[in-house]
């Protein structure tokens, strides 16, 4: 079953077309890399998938639901980490998680265990009682993931999860994403600019340029028809090729 399926999904703002006839399918347990320059329409697409923005034309299905009609069902099972996610800095990490848990209607009896588990999954055990204001950037990003995990989602949509992290933080984040797919069977959709990282963990990529899907497929598929490099598929090369063509 396809986790995400879009059919000619389009969104216009006035005369400008942010997303132009996007047709895309993401299967179960994929780590899908969603690439493209700034302003290519990646975030708009994500917002449409979550039912936070209405498409101008076309339709989408997420986990079998229509985001325009059933956004609550989708939000219940999809964890979305916005770019540069914010927290209530005057609360502790634990309190932030508890609030998110309540908003997701976790049963009060199970919530503490789930929260504890989420914290240890992202490697923040023992840090829960610190104020989020005192967290480092890497810790904040991991807390963001923990917030998604408390509702045990089927699909994770991560918008630039590694932006601004140091090399160590980046590595831990990527390992975390891979392990979530491997151990919990989650599907991940990941939007990013950092091609080298996408290349390391994604099973498939889509390149979006000026609202259109310029390329879609695994790295091997996309590198065919290229210069036929000896060093194997290189995402940066592929990306630049499509970028110049557009």
């Amino acid at each position: 079953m396809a986790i995400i399926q879009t059919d000619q999904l389009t969104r216009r703002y006035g005369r400008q077309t942010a997303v132009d006839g996007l047709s895309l399918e993401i299967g179960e347990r994929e780590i899908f890399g969603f690439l493209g320059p700034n302003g290519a329409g990646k975030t708009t697409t994500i917002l449409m998938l979550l039912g936070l923005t209405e498409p101008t034309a076309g339709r989408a299905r997420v986990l079998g639901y229509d985001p325009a009609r059933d956004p609550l069902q989708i939000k219940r099972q999809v964890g979305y980490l916005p770019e540069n996610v914010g927290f209530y800095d005057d609360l502790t990490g634990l309190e932030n998680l508890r609030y998110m848990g309540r908003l997701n209607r976790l049963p009060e009896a199970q919530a503490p265990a789930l929260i504890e588990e989420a914290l240890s999954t992202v490697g923040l055990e023992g840090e829960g009682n610190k104020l989020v204001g005192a967290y480092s950037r890497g810790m904040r990003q991991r807390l963001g993931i923990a917030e998604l995990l408390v509702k045990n989602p089927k699909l994770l949509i991560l918008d630039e999860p590694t932006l601004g992290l140091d090399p160590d933080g980046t590595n831990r984040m990527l390992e975390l994403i891979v392990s979530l797919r491997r151990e919990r069977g989650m599907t991940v959709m990941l939007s990013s600019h950092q091609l080298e990282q996408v290349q390391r963990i994604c099973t498939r990529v889509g390149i979006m340029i000026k609202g259109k899907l310029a390329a879609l497929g695994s790295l091997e598929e996309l590198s065919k028809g290229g210069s036929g490099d000896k060093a194997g598929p290189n995402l940066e090369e592929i990306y630049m090729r499509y970028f110049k063509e557009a």
Partner: protein
Amino acid sequence: MWTICRKELADHFGSIRFLILFCLILMVALVSTYMAATHVREALDGAKPSQVFLLLFTTPGKFFSLVQFIALFGPLLGIIMGFDAINRERQHRTLGKLVSQPIYRDAIVNGKFLAGVLTISVALLSMMLLLTGLGLMTVGVVPGIEEIGRLAIYLLVSIAYVSFWLGLAILFSVLFRSLATSALAAVALWIFSAFFVGFLADLAADALRPIRNPRDPEEIVANRRFADASSLASPAVLYSQATSTILDPYRRTRSNLVLTGPMERLSLERFERPLPLDQSILVVWPYLTLLAAMTLVCFGLSYVVFMRQEIRSV
């Protein structure tokens, strides 16, 4: 919605700015009531009119009466709690996260408004109780049932009044991105309605219903009527007129003294008896409806704007 309401409540009661403002208001209220109480006690020597207890709240002490004070500074309480309701979440980038949780979007505004109203209620109620206790101690008059009823209505009207400002502040917090802008806009409107609407109403009345002949009573009456009607656009005027009628049973007309004819004035003097509570309510009913309507319009507007706002910009 309750989850959001609960969190906002905790935020309000824990926030330092609320604490400061509440202490300030409480302090001024205590002082003014105390002064009113000593005043009343002196004036009371010997005489024993009915419903003395209400005088505590309406007698101006050295500066102003408690009722005037709340009319002036109550809005600040509402503004302080509402001006950053939505745009603080925006600034801290938590709004995008909030709307991607499985809740309806209106629950966010509803929860925040509800939490604000609850906080206001608790603050005002505790203040009233404190002042009542103070009044009991200093004046030594026990309030009757009717006086308690009047005070309860006064409390309700005050909550509605402060809620109006809360709704307005939340509206601004939806409309403006920056915290400072929305705070400033709300405060500007507050100052305008508190101080300038009266002048403006007079100006408008003079312009549109000029008194050409100062001896002509009809022109004077028309002029005053117009000024009164247009000053009702200010919630502060609405509020102070409504509450003074409720707290002052001897007042039986909302209209300006200039408007009362000689016969009416005569009849007022003849029946120097207090208006029963239900009649007082009847007199102020239109004011209450108008106040409630303004609150709902504010709240409804912010609701609609927020629901339609593009999340993109969130």
